[in-house]
């Protein structure tokens, strides 16, 4: 979780910077990042000898709005129900 906070607050960063001060190993940090990468939450790119990680905002925002979408679907379904009952 602190990884995400770091990526939010500090922007793109290398594994070294992301692991700095955390009580987990770099391998564990890498593992977390891979998991998040597979879900499209973060992305990485090679810069010279280092891999730089950053949040993938497009995908995260998609997730953020999932409930909004479902919520709107319910709104419209319930308005249809009212239409049926009150006609």
């Amino acid at each position, binding site marked *: 979780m602190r990884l995400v906070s770091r990526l939010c607050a500090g922007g793109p960063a290398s594994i070294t910077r992301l692991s700095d001060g955390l009580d987990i190993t770099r391998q564990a940090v890498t593992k977390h990042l891979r998991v998040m990468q597979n879900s499209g939450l973060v992305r990485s790119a090679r810069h010279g000898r280092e891999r730089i990680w950053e949040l993938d905002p497009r995908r995260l925002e998609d997730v953020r709005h999932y409930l909004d*979408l479902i919520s709107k679907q319910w709104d419209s379904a319930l308005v249809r129900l009212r239409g049926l009952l009150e006609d």
Partner: protein
Amino acid sequence: MTTDRIEKQIFLRAPRQRVWRALVDSKEFGTWFGVKFAGPFTPGARVRGTVVGTAVDAGIAKLQKQYAGVPFEITVDRIEPERLLSFRWHPNAVEPGVDYTREPTTLIVFTLEDVTGGVLLTVTESGFDQIPLERRAQAFEANDQGWSMVIQLIDKYLAKAA
């Protein structure tokens, strides 16, 4: 703010019996919801159906047309006459050719309550935190809102992945 649950309330100016019928009768439910069900709702039953346009609103029916024919399935949970109906489904399972059967479901609960002049209907849908992030992300276009809810979501996700 929860990421797991949606709650909706609507006041319906109709007798409780009438509201109940619009929910528990799979044919009536399908009319406003936009799904044609193959059988009745009974506790524990898996009821298959297909998405059709709703008969209530022509504009929405047109929107739903793009999903017409998509299979739809619910598993009825509880039926407590004129008080509560609940079932499970795969939320937003509208992509043709995608097999949702192995994915977690959400629980939908309708409850009825008498209020002056009609019925207060409450709908909750919960269990979204179990839905794969990929599935949730696929559902929309990008937007420009804040991060707090996303962070909460990722937190839960990572707690499980660890």
